[in-house]
């Protein structure tokens, strides 16, 4: 005959909330990866600030060939030629059209250049996964490395709840770091940066949530999750997500960028070669990111429930 165990629902809920709060507090302690992340953030902000300071986001001051006039000077030349032409001259009208088109392209080019090189090439492909993994791999990884996981696994809490609590506690830090970093870069980018922030911050949030779920799972699976996550980020999210073909559809970055492209649809702007990149629709991208997050969390909960951590045996 066995004695019965008392109903655990309320205590478990209380214990879970306490674990979330404990984990949030423990995440506040600086870690090595976080120092690297912050250093990269400062570097990125300085780089963007310098480019902004020298007004290099647009093509106004660029020259098609050395010694030739800049694009802006070319526009001035077109306007000057127009002033010399008769008002009702068809050639004059043509010059009007060309001048206005080139000026518009130059004015909007700043956002295109900023998005392509800073948002897509640097932030979304490289910094976003890196900053996310600095917190996401640490949530469980640090407990494993410092062997304090034993204090959590000896409590009367389901292991899956421990895993989920760690994820929930780490998420505000990941979102905070990524949004802060993205905001700082956008702020340093001037006008095109502000437009990029307005359009892309939701995609940054969803990307962070998905990456955090992935890196949290890696922390449950591997003893050195930060190393595994770094290798994954560099070789898969950075390289594969830019390759032509369908392989990039396996990367999280692809769906984040698709969300970003979708946010531009109302503005009739295309910051990248959309026909080559072939993004999915915004809803599809959002659905995939949410779905991937949920699936990764469930897999992680199952894995963590079954894993026997033997760091100190």
């Amino acid at each position, binding site marked *: *005959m*066995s*004695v019965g165990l008392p109903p655990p629902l*309320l*205590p478990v809920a209380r214990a879970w909330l306490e674990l979330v709060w404990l984990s949030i507090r*423990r995440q506040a302690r600086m870690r090595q990866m976080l120092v690297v992340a912050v250093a990269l953030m400062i570097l990125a902000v300085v780089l963007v600030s310098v480019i902004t300071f020298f007004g290099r986001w647009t093509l106004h001051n660029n020259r098609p060939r050395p010694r030739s006039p800049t694009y802006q000077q070319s526009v001035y030349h077109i306007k000057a030629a127009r002033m010399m032409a008769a008002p009702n001259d068809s050639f004059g009208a043509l010059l009007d059209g060309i001048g206005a088109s080139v000026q518009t392209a130059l004015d909007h080019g700043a956002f295109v250049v900023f998005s392509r090189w800073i948002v897509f090439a640097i932030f979304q492909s490289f910094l976003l996964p890196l900053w996310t993994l600095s917190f996401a791999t640490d949530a469980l990884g640090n407990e494993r490395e410092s062997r*304090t996981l034993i*204090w959590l696994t000896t409590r*009367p809490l389901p292991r899956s709840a421990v895993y989920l609590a760690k994820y929930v506690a780490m998420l505000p830090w990941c979102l905070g770091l990524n949004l802060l970093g993205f905001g700082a870069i956008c702020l340093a980018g001037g006008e095109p940066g502000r437009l990029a922030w307005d359009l892309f911050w939701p995609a940054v949030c969803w990307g962070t949530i998905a990456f955090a779920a992935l890196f949290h799972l890696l922390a449950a699976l591997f003893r050195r999750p930060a190393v595994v996550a770094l290798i994954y980020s560099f070789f898969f999210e950075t390289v594969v997500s830019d390759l032509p073909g369908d392989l990039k559809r396996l990367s999280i970055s692809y769906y984040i960028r698709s969300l970003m492209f979708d946010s531009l649809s109302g503005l009739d702007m295309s910051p990248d070669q959309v026909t080559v990149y072939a993004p999915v629709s915004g809803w599809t991208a959002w659905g995939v990111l949410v779905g991937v997050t949920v699936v990764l969390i469930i897999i992680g909960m199952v894995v963590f429930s079954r894993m026997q951590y033997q760091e100190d*045996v």
Partner: protein
Amino acid sequence: MENKSPSAIARTVEDNSAFRTPHSELQSPLLLLEQVTKWYGPVIGVNQVTLELHGGIIGLVGANGAGKTTLLRLVTGQLRPDLGRVTVRGFDTWNWQTKRLIGYCPDADVFYEEMSGLEFVETMARLCGYSRREARQRTEAVIEQVGMVGRSSRKIRGYSKGMRQRIKLAQALLHDPELLVLDEPLSGIDPIGRQDSLQLFQELADRGKCLLISSHELEELEKLTDRVAILARGRIAAVGPVRQIRELLDHHPMTIRIDTAKSRQLAAELLAFQEVVGVDLSESSKEMPEVGTLIVRARNPRKFYEDFGRLVIQKELDVRRLEPLDDSTEAVLDYLLGGRNV
């Protein structure tokens, strides 16, 4: 006389009724390991261990690498057996709910170092699901139990080894568990602290708790309990009262020191005993030249003591000292492990 193997000893003593409480027929055993085997890749951690505990204090002893920590981690649900089953009151220890029945004081000296002792224990209480108020009450109670009042508000990183041990012990007591699993709980504690800890363990046992204590401090363990489970190479070599295990070690006759005035006469008488396999006669000491010392090696100590008692009465011998020299836990362990130290 037939020599018994360690596994045979384990089987024999497991059947001993001293390990069962009067209610054992009504309730599941408090702790039950059934043919438990655990592998670490190609290395076996514990091998077909069967153990049943119903209460009291049981020492778990064995050489380094014998599988003690693995066994304790199986009992506390940190590891899952590859074969067999570990249950507490009939519940699988891997089940998270079973952890409410178990208090675990691990060997690992790891904490959330940035916390004070009080904060740490209270956090552990909160993680057990207690309300803030109840957690605080329980924390204060266990801090007092382990003798950390007045010192618990300091940061753990500044604690001595003994204070850290006490905090580990405090968190294990928080939820008033039926089974307390203590891995090297006396390690690093000063003599006074040890005395306090032993007293606390005894009090807990008196309150009906079952304590499974792994320790290298065999002398201290002996003060607490004479019941041990001896692990060797992942197997339970013997389990039961130390003296009973010792008696079953036929291939190692018991060594007994006898100080008496008529040592030569007694030696001759003892050699006539069937169970006596040898007698050494030592020189008298300068302090007591009239008293001689005999070192007797005897099989079946119980029968030896009976026969010896009768002989002393019949011959009216003046026995000044009668002391078994190798029935301590350490000696038993040494015999069972073939001379390898713990």
